[in-house]
């Protein structure tokens, strides 16, 4: 079973078609698989508590731009990674929200620019968002950013209207 997992991951990594420096080597031995072989896993979901919503970014993430912005084939690849890395099981099908917050509401807890979304994935966030930086290649994170940003684009979820049909009287 473990072998099967590695294969399925490798297939995903191979299919991204990215030829940037270092990515090929990374693809053969992704960080996640390495991590499973370590006796003491590094901290993955713990996050420094000093990163708070609304606080200015550090480390230059805000200046980053997504090389894949608006690239449909990369967005499609990002949607596959969203399933493969179990993002969907936290954030819901189509990013609609589950254990983790919705990514499809056009609202952003920690900022919605490409650099800010990259930072959220790379560094993790305090309420259990894992830090994926160094565990998966940066170009895969950018594919995820492109996918996630596509989910809520242009949505207005401000109003929910309940008029009209409602539940029929029950009971008893």
């Amino acid at each position, binding site marked *: 079973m473990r072998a099967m997992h590695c294969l399925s991951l490798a297939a995903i990594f191979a299919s991204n078609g990215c030829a940037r420096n270092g990515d090929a080597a990374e693809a053969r031995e992704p960080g996640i698989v390495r991590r499973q072989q370590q006796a003491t896993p590094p901290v993955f979901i713990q996050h420094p508590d000093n990163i708070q919503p609304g606080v200015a970014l550090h480390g230059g993430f805000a200046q980053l731009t997504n090389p894949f912005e608006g690239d449909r084939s990369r967005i499609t690849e990002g949607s596959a990674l969203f399933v*493969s890395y179990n993002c969907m099981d936290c954030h819901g099908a189509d990013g609609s929200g589950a254990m*983790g*917050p919705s990514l499809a509401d056009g*609202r952003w807890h920690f900022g919605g620019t490409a650099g800010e979304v990259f930072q959220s994935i790379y560094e993790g966030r305090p309420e*259990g968002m894992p830090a994926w930086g160094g565990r998966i290649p940066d170009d895969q994170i950018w594919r995820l950013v492109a996918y996630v940003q596509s989910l809520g684009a242009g949505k207005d979820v401000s109003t929910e209207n309940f008029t009209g049909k409602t539940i*029929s009287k*029950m009971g*008893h």
Partner: protein
Amino acid sequence: MLRISSLALVSLSVSACKQLGTNTDTSGARNVQGGAPIVADARIGTPNPPGAEGEWTMPARDYASSRYSTLAQITSANAKNLKAAWTFSTGVLRGHEGQPLVVNNTMYLVTPFPNVAYAIDLTQPGYPLKWKYRPENSQAAVGTACCDVVNRGAAYADGRLVYNLLDGHTVAVDAGSGKQLWRVQMADLNRGETITMAPIIVKNRVIVGSSGGEMGVRGWIAALDLATGKELWRGYNTGSDADVKIGPRFKPFYATERGKDLGLTSWPGDAWKIGGGAVWGWLSYDPTLNLIYHGTSNPGPWNQDQRPGDNKWTCAILARDADTGELVWAFQVTPHDLWDYDAVNENILVDLPVKGQSRHALVHFDRNGFAYTLDRATGEVLLAQPFVPMNWAKYVNLETGRPQIDTSKATKQGKLVKNICPSLEGGKNQQPAAFSPQTGLFYVPTNNLCMDFQSRPVTYIAGTPYIGANAPETGGPGNYKGEFIAWDASNGRKVWGIREPFPVWGGALATAGNVVFYGTLDGWFKAANARTGEVLWQFRVGSGIVGNPITYLGPDGRQYVAVYSGIGGDMGLLIAGDVAANLPFDVRERGTTLPDLARYTSWGGMLFVFAL
């Protein structure tokens, strides 16, 4: 327990789902107005709980998990006069599962994360706090818990209040001062473990168990020393016999539960290491047999193709020696679970007649839709009958204890299996039932939901969900999604039912005044006649109810009934995320399972107390 929403919900055919177990109300029972029990010779199977008659010192009031109180000032004749007496805001939103305790004229509350504890002085006007305790609790736990950040309550013994923190610690505080006595890390967030369950305290041992069946955990149950927090034993629910604590005393009733290292050999390779079997539900204890009873959660992942075999001891009821943790018997309710049917629901210990013979029984309303009456000394299944509409199995074979599965409802990787009833929320979930020796009946909050199920390959990544399936849900057959029922566990039949538009996700309380209480997701707290199911009184609280009512005697000698209001858990976070009105950064669209719920309720966090 987790549910993943999907926009592409296929509408389920109501007529395609067999309506097993949906007897209409028994009109004969409605005419009974007090007097003889409906099921004769049924008794709570354990001695009276510690504390006074008017107190509530452990989650289900007694070790039998009866949730029955002998208080009888509130009766089926005067319940219509109930009024709100006082309220208290917990300061926390999210799902308020669980229940308060009342000891020494003090009420103890534990909130959802961040798991604040309050001690309320019931002797003073205005009910001021004696203390509040704000534990250190890792924020990372919020996103590691599958199904909202709930807590199911505390236990009290020997001047100590003990409960679990979402981030995996167990804490004990001095009940008089609120001072922390000890704080012990039991679970590891980095492996996806959290703790949501309520402990019980048995002979100076605190019994706790883990959550995280959706995160690839390896489930366990452990005993801590009440005085120091020192771990005394820990039994795993997968793995070798030594780890599971199977030894010479292990005598399961059924042949399929016997064999060496089944917790290893019923899994492929090392899958048992991440195979689930968490202990997030309720615990019971029989002092005569010295056995602790607990259920175990679903196996991980939900994708069954990644774990061929029985997957022992997931989806099972286990009986362990309270002193050593040794397994004495085991019964796997749903072997090789294909539908996320955890077996963690409460086990109610009652002595009752079955087929003319008095039995020391354990009654369990499983997620899988069958109500089991077991022999609690041996694990033998005496009866198993559907208590909600269901179609995944035809019956339970009493020779083997195993369900006879309808193969058209068997889930398989890559295949979309439609209209499986009950849904993965189960015929009943965490909402605990109650038992009244006055009527001999069990009072059971139930769900009436069905699902489609499609599984897919999933990779284990520590600290992330390990699920591998989508399972959109919708209402079951009939125009109702929940029902509060009275159940005869001697004969395996429903006696009456109160249908509700939404799943009944709050627990039950039975009282000697011939009154039973429960709350609804749309915010009604109701009192019903225990014999007939007639609704006697109802009150609209602020937020939907997912907690469990209790009753106590105040210092003024009056009987009170208390319940949390505060929707959440699976129902208020995952199934109907749009009830959360306070999160500007997490706006969820209306779900398909309970599309109307947000019209009737929003998140809250209040204690409501009622009296005549």
